[in-house]
């Protein structure tokens, strides 16, 4: 208990500390929005090049203004500004605030000697929820540790109450979490990824311009656990008689581990080296030394993945909130009547597979891109180190299983692509309002090339699904407890359609869905095709318990 208390106490303390700093900073920022707009004149404007790994390029400015009859001079661009690693950004500010030009500055009415040219955006306060998450974890954890309820050995203390209102609140809370994922993913994509992605896509339209390297070095950035490195090559070029400086190497900046590769690049671009750079035709200040595609650009796809996860979660929670209360105990989540069935429950219903061939293919592509995108960054690093004669054996051996999974994912994409051309089965039931012991008619058909099908079966199967955690992994074990043939063709498929009787066993367990444990019923359609992906479809069924009148009979 002491260990857990310390652990959660630390979370709580750090969360409160960060919240305090964020709120304080946010309030100070908001306060500047009460400062007075005042005309000012720019006296000096330029870019300072400093010997700093983190902020080597700093926009420096001096301006004067008059406030209540007194003249003042200040040199603050923005309260928290102290330069950055991108020369072009600093250069653009000299264009926005040229020496001799007029601008508007914001003067602190309580201390007129204090002024800024630009106020901090107030959206920093939106990030306050991040440390509040730590506060919630810490506070909640401490409560759980010390709460007598948690120490209870009763099953009652662990059980949830059958409370549709509470379930709805939980679904709404999860909806909020997934909306947050969408906002964060979408926001990061819009703010950080969209511009570089546009540049990557339009790289072909850039002008090739001669440039001369003015300085070059590998900058090191000390982190908590390790040091990362970045390439900083400052080069000069001319466009339409005007001289520009830029230190952009590719379309995205940042730093990473792996010193030797970067050192090799810097060595190739020693001061005085004449080379070419690629300039955006509409913005001569925007230049890069390298415009070809680099696997690291795939990292730009990470925010959209968060957005998609959020979108999928929002969709799932909206489905939950739309479901009739009390029904979800029987119905598997993806077999509700508005999802799995095309007409109302009482008449014939054409079933939809739980995952269509197209969904499987798209899913495999997303996984393949995501997995290989991340792995390729490290593969490139290992390859560059090998090329430079400094083979990183640990990284190389470590990457082998990940590369194998990546290759397997490529094969999976091909497999599911081929499966798109399979004949498509179609299953229609006389009724989907099925209870234990019921019977209904089943009509089936197969459209497309049937000639290659060696065997075709439709089975009614019941399956246990048990989800549990092992370490940090979540696993789901499955066990088919019953498999009843409904349609069987062992030697080819002589006909393209047929019908059968579907009998639900009377003494079995009905469909059941809880958070970690499920009983799932489904129709399994399997078509064996020689030298081609088989037809494999599952159609979820909702088998309800017996009604009261049948139990009492």
């Amino acid at each position, binding site marked *: 208990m002491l260990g857990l208390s310390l652990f959660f106490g630390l979370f709580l303390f750090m969360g409160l500390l960060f919240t305090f700093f964020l709120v304080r900073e946010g309030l100070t920022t908001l306060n500047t929005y009460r400062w007075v707009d005042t005309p000012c004149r720019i006296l000096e404007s330029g870019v300072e090049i400093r010997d700093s790994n983190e902020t080597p390029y700093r926009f420096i400015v001096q301006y004067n203004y008059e406030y209540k009859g007194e003249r003042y001079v200040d040199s603050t661009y923005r309260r928290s500004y102290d330069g950055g690693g991108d020369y072009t950004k600093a250069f653009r500010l000299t264009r926005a605030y040229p020496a001799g030009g007029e601008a508007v500055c914001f003067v602190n009415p309580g201390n007129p000697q204090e002024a800024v040219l630009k106020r901090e955006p107030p959206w920093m306060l939106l990030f306050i929820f991040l440390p509040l998450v730590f506060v919630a974890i810490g506070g909640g954890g401490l409560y759980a540790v010390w709460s007598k309820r948690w120490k*209870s050995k*009763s099953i*009652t203390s662990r059980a949830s109450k059958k409370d549709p209102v509470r379930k709805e609140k939980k679904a709404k809370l999860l909806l909020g979490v997934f909306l947050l994922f969408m906002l964060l993913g979408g926001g990061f994509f819009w703010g950080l990824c969209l511009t570089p992605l546009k540049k990557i896509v339009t790289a072909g339209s850039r002008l090739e311009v001669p440039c001369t390297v003015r300085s070059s070095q590998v900058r090191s950035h000390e982190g908590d656990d390790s040091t990362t490195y970045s390439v900083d090559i400052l080069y000069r070029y001319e466009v339409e008689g005007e001289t520009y400086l830029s230190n952009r190497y590719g379309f995205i900046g940042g730093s990473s581990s792996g010193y030797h590769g970067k050192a090799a690049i810097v060595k190739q671009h020693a001061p005085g080296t004449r080379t070419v750079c690629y300039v955006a035709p509409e913005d001569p200040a925007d230049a890069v030394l390298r415009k070809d595609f680099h696997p690291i650009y795939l990292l730009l796809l990470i925010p959209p993945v968060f957005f998609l996860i959020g979108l999928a979660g929002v969709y799932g929670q909206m489905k939950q909130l739309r479901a009739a209360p009390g029904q979800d105990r029987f119905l598997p989540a993806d077999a509700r009547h508005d999802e799995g069935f095309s007409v109302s429950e009482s008449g014939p219903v054409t079933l939809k597979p739980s995952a269509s061939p197209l969904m499987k293919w798209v899913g495999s592509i997303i996984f393949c891109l995501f997995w290989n995108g991340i792995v390729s960054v490290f593969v490139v690093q290992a390859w560059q180190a090998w090329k430079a004669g400094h083979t990183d054996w640990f990284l190389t051996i470590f990457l082998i299983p990940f590369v194998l999974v990546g290759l397997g994912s490529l094969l999976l994409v091909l497999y599911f692509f081929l499966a798109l051309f399979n004949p498509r089965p179609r299953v229609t039931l006389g009724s989907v309002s099925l209870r234990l012991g019921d019977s209904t008619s089943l009509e089936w058909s197969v459209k497309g090339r049937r000639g290659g099908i060696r065997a075709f079966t439709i089975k009614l199967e019941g399956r246990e699904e048990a989800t549990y955690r092992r370490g940090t992994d979540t696993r789901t074990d499955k066990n088919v*407890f019953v498999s009843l043939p409904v349609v069987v063709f062992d030697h080819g498929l002589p006909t393209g359609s047929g019908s059968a009787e579907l009998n639900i066993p009377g003494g079995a367990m009905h469909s059941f869905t809880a958070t*970690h*444990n499920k009983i799932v019923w489904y129709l399994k359609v399997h078509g064996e095709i020689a030298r081609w992906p088989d037809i494999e479809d599952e159609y979820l069924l909702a088998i309800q318990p017996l009604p009261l009148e049948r*139990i009492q009979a």
Partner: protein
Amino acid sequence: MKSLRVELNEGRTTYRPGGELKGRVVWTAAEIPETLQVSLLWFTKGRGTEDAEIVDQVVLHAPGLSGDRAFSFRLPLSPYSFSGRLISLLWVVEAVLREPEEIARQEIILSPSGEEIDLTGMP
């Protein structure tokens, strides 16, 4: 001497869905308890993480040092008691006396046949 027990009418432990479960809880506590809860609930056991749900509950506040109280629950239509290779679902009437905590349970079977559904024996 402290004791807590749940007794079901006629000593029944098997019930049909939709039926009525009647019983009594008898207790003697060492200290005056704050609450006595009697809950009808189901829970899962086996490979998966436990799920549990309280279907109905009666709560007595300041029940006294000792007592004898009858209770009655209307049983729902589902889920049935079952046992499979990975998951079992059990029904229980659990009495919890607080503070200090004392627990007493009586397992029951809820199914149309009166017997636990055995998934391992299905064809």
